[in-house]
């Protein structure tokens, strides 16, 4: 049966799907954002003693620290609901179990073994909800000698080889900024959850997943790994150069710390590039006539290109080259991104009203499904939905809620 487009506009992709999240910081919360923005009910379990540490990660709104002020938290945790539960209290664990019994997915991002110790491991939870989908995500997997070795997205970028190959060949590695590999693990986890939901709807079966951030990352390094295994070669840092494109790099433009990236792979792109520069004499020289010669002479080529870019703003360089069919892009900083007409057009970043800080930044998930409705809601205050979830989802009476509250179960 097919629905009219008006009916479709009111539909939610994940209507009725409930997710309980025992995970903090980047990976777990990011992996369920896809579900949350498209209509699933995502319940984040925190406690007053142990709020998500992302709430204390800078930057803070107007540079004033506070549990509701982190712009990182608001960027990542939009559309989630927050319940505070004291899992050191036996009744807190009971409530977590009751929640799971009414849920479809459980995310475990805590240190391996933590949930099992609380009686909330997969083997406990599948007894409560046989078709539960549970995904554990940590640095290096649930098993093995390094399973409990603490780390984060910056250190895992090092362990996975990304940081060694980012930088200049004549210098120490500069590495990829920020916990880049958190994003990699979040994407693979989100993909796994999608597949698991589909599998469950066809077979009725839930299952357990063990995601190692390390093992996800290595899929990105696969060609280098094969090169080493087959040819015993180690990839070194290449700066911004590419062995089969020139010019290929980042060029200084007018202004303070302003740059434009330019990449010329094909001969036709080179011709267009020269035309934009007004075909100066040097562009006709044999040392730049073919891709091979351009790559060989890229140091001199880059200097000549920069003599042109330095007289223009990066925006001018980008637009002039793009109009001629050459790939070029401003090296955008936070301010540029915030004002980027394309990102605004795609609603990729926005501000949402927030009761404590006025407005909070929100970054939508990367994927767009033009025909599928989504909605954006600001990140939750700590424990904002505790009462609502207890009463609406768990059918608690006022009396029961107050009793548990007074007992410290919701701290």
């Amino acid at each position, binding site marked *: 049966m097919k629905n009219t487009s008006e009916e*479709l506009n009111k539909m939610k992709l994940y209507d009725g799907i409930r997710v309980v999240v025992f995970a903090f910081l980047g990976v777990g919360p990011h992996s369920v954002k896809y579900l949350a923005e498209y209509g699933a009910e995502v319940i984040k379990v925190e406690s007053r003693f142990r709020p998500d540490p992302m709430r204390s990660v800078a*930057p803070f*709104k107007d540079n004033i620290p506070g549990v509701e002020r982190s712009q*990182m938290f608001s*960027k990542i945790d939009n559309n989630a609901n927050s319940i505070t539960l004291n899992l050191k209290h036996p009744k807190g664990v009971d409530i977590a179990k009751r929640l799971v019994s009414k849920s479809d997915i459980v995310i475990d991002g805590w240190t391996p073994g933590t949930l099992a110790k609380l009686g909330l491991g997969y083997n406990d939870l599948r007894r409560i909800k046989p078709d539960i989908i549970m995904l554990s995500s940590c640095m*290096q*997997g649930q*098993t093995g000698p390094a399973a409990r070795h603490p780390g*984060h997205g910056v*250190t895992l970028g*090092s*362990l996975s*080889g*990304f940081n*060694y190959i*980012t*930088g*200049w060949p004549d210098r120490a*590695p*500069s590495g*990829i900024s920020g916990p880049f590999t958190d*994003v990699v693990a979040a994407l*693979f986890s989100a993909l*796994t959850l999608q597949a698991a939901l*589909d*599998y469950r709807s066809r077979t009725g*079966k839930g*299952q357990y*997943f*063990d*995601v190692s951030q390390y*093992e*996800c990352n*290595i*899929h990105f390094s*696969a060609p280098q*790994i*094969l090169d*080493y295994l087959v*040819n015993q070669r*180690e990839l070194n840092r290449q*700066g*911004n150069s590419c*062995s089969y494109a020139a010019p290929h790099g*980042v060029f200084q433009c007018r202004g303070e710390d302003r740059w*434009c*990236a330019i990449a010329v*792979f094909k001969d036709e792109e080179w011709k267009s590039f020269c035309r934009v520069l007004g075909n100066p004499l040097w562009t006709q020289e044999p040392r730049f006539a073919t891709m091979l010669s351009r790559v060989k002479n890229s140091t001199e080529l880059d200097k000549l290109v920069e003599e042109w870019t330095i007289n223009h703003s990066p925006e001018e360089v980008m637009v002039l080259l793009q109009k001629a069919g050459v*790939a070029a*892009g401003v*090296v955008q*900083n*936070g301010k540029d991104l*915030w004002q980027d007409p394309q990102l605004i*057009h*795609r609603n990729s970043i926005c501000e949402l009203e927030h009761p404590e800080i006025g407005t909070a930044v929100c970054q939508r998930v*990367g*994927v767009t*499904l*033009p025909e599928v409705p989504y909605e954006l809601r600001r990140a939750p205050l700590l424990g904002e939905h505790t009462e609502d979830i207890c009463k609406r989802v768990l059918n608690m009476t006022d009396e029961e809620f107050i009793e548990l509250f007074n007992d410290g179960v919701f701290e």
Partner: protein
Amino acid sequence: MLAPYRALDLTDEKGFLCAKALADLGCDVIKIEKPGGDKARRIGPFYHDIYHPEKSLYWFAFNANKRGITLDIETADGQEILKKLIKKADFVIESFSPGYLDKLALGYSELSQVNDQIIVTSITPFGDTGPYKDFKAYDIVALAMGGLLNLCGDPDRPPVAPSFFTSYLLAGVEAALGTLMALRWRWVSGRGTRVVISLQDEVLTASWDAVPYWAGSKTISKRSGPFSIRPNVTYRITWPCKDGYVTFFYFGGQTGAEGNRALVEWMDSEGIDCRFLKEQNWDSFDWDKLNQDEVDRLEKPLVPFFMGHTTAELYEGAVRRNIILYPLAMAKDIVNNQQLKAREYWTEVNHPELQTNIIYPGAFVKASETRCGIFRRAPLIGEHNQEIYEEELGFSKEELLMLKQAGTI
């Protein structure tokens, strides 16, 4: 997990990982190449450094688990064949310039007339609408426009890109998960739909705190190379050691306290002056409460200690003591890593033409009910033409020969 489904993979290197990830989860993927083979077969490294379209390790890595056919979709016959394939497929993954398929009358509206259940996933530089929709982007341009490039590199040099195609890989995984979101929509709505990926948006996702800093406090995050720059202090995160580099900084809160104490003990046992370090209360350690002089004193003992040890010694000791210290691994370190071996991560795959087995990265997830991972090498050029065109679509040998002569397949 995805065994009932079939994907047609029309992508170039911007989208290889999308269908590869779906194939790792069990989806039947048919890679469609131009007659003569995909251009990306020219991307190195190569098996034994022999430049040959059947020996690209880059191709091997991102096209394993797929079957492969050749087809020129710019010819009328090719378009008819593609439509036949689409009738039996669930997903089409493509990364052509926006508008290219529309020009060939193979855009989403045409394809959905052929099969209204079809899901079309497009990997584009900047999306399919908006002021930059016709802008071109290779990896470095996407990294620039999405904000990650500005954060990477040393402050006294230009921003620097990772030496691998970061944006294409992020986009590939995002496209795979978007494709499955569309699959659910098909189940909800009764019909297929479109998925659009923008390389710029993918990079934006990884640009960490660039937007929050500007939006929240009108501050511009800058690249700081091997250092971390806080409002009051600067501390080092990448350190040279005896034979390479390690990532380390004193990590605050409970997470870091145990390891910080253990490191001080370790350094102390080797005769390094740790008096200032021993005065620290690691449970409440916070960089923002220090001044630069204190930071310098905290870091001073690390220099001789790290330079006195290899990355392997430091990492092995760090795992044992729960110190948040990691090597800047090279391929050899990854291949020899004990954790990956203990979890039986690596998978050997047979390449009969090369008369060898090659070891590949294994599953990106361990699943209790289903299997994820690699089970077959990447296809040779047109390897499954017979299987698909003759056995599935019912072309005769003669027709196949004609199509080959015409350059269609």
